[in-house]
């Protein structure tokens, strides 16, 4: 069997498939949002301060549930929301560490 050089048709077919795959994978799915919500709530549960812990957990649940229920079709908005929540997750991770460096007394009911 002789190898044939790729023709113009093959190139355009490859280009189209790559763009299709790119668009498909850059689209933020509901599954990715749910996963990010789960990670955020897990990280927020690590806060040593009771008030911060409860606030960030409740806030993550509320924000993600409200957004997912809206079923936003505009991909830009979805990407913006996803990026914002991702950067907030980084903030939460850093602040959890800082909270652990400066431990404080517990509440009477936490004992």
């Amino acid at each position, binding site marked *: 069997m002789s190898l044939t050089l790729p023709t113009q048709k093959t190139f355009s077919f490859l280009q189209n498939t790559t763009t299709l795959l790119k668009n498909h994978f850059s689209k933020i799915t509901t599954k990715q949002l749910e996963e990010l919500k789960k990670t955020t709530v897990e990280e927020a549960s690590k806060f040593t301060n009771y008030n911060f812990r409860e*606030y960030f957990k409740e*806030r993550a649940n509320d924000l993600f549930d409200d957004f997912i229920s809206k079923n936003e079709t505009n991909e830009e908005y979805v990407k913006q929301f996803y990026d914002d929540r991702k950067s907030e997750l980084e903030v939460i991770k*850093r602040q959890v560490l800082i909270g652990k460096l400066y431990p404080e007394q517990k509440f009477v009911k936490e004992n």
Partner: protein
Amino acid sequence: MLSISKIAIKKSPLSLSSYFSNTKPRYKFRSHYFDFQATSPTDPRVLDKMLPYMITKQGNAHSKTHMHGWEAEGGVEEARAHVSDLIHADPKEIIFTSGATESNNIAIKGVMNFLNPMKKHVITSQIEHKCVLESCKLLESKGFDVTYLPVQRNGIIDIGELKKAIRPDTGLVSIMGVNNEIGVLQPLKEIGNLCRSNKIKFHTDCAQMFGKLPIDVNDMKIDLMSISGHKIYGPKGVGALYVRRRPRVRLLALQSGGGQERGIRSGTLPSPIIVGLGEAARIAKSEMERDNRRIKKLADKLISQVMEKIPLVQLNGDKEKRYHGCVNLSFAFAEGESLLMNLKDFALSSGSACTSASLEPSYVLRALGVPDEYAHSSLRIGLGRFTTEKEIDFFVETLVTSVERLREMSPLYDMYLEGVDFTKINWSHD
């Protein structure tokens, strides 16, 4: 000889830490925070934004010649934009100060010193913050006239009284947005319209309102506004003053120096804490609706449960026109300071933080016409972004048992239950 030298070795020299024994916890457990009007905890997102400006981006924001200065300046200008965005103002109209107290001083003294001697009259209210009242007292000693407007029983200014108090030589009206002790919301739009039509400058101390309730300086025709950083989950030691540019508000600066902040407040800008204030303002704008919904729900639950379980409880201030996060309750026949002692697991206050050191009842409650026995038995409960429903439940449970225990011990309460009329008693000793 040996025993004396042993004693000499064992006896340690006086250490500085023995003078600061109040930093050691007196009570083993941490108290639940219910004093959001005094100050608020710094939001972790605000701290995260501030830290780089304390570690690497440590330049002086006024240094125009190198990267360190440009970075700090960038942070400050971003903060300025966030603060102005929240009140629908222009960024150039925001002056950063060390807090609402300094902003109030600059606004009141600066404007009146500029308008002297054409305008000699200032109008304010009896329930203003101490810094406003003291600034007005200083102006009085310098020959200005000050009218302290009384408030109605619900804590709100009567617009008719304000109209009557205006004179041809009135230069400034200073009325706060939300009161720090009772939480009532003043009618800023009506006052602003009245002042604009009479060409009088309108200053408002919005330290407790900024970031919590919506403000539009153009709609409310506000000329000067004081902002505090640590009331909106930002760092302590920073605030801002909004000074209108169109129509221009002219004032004389209190602090002389290099002419920073349009010459109104000279001094190196504390870029880390200004960035913190900006981030707190940005978060407040996006979270205002959600926070208010939560806080109103918690406050309604608190007030309804307390009123249901204990008789003779009074909510001070208007029920509707208020910021719901400030609940001031008076309990008859239960003294305020004793109540606080019984509520060790909660951080509360029985008057504003500025006046809690003195034994006098709060001047705000006195201005409302609350009788002394109710004024002495009042608690200010502050709710905020980080308060949870479980904390409210625990608080109500403890409060009810404490009030019932104090009333059991009170002979006056026994007399009240027997139906004794207190007005007919002659309280003199024979």
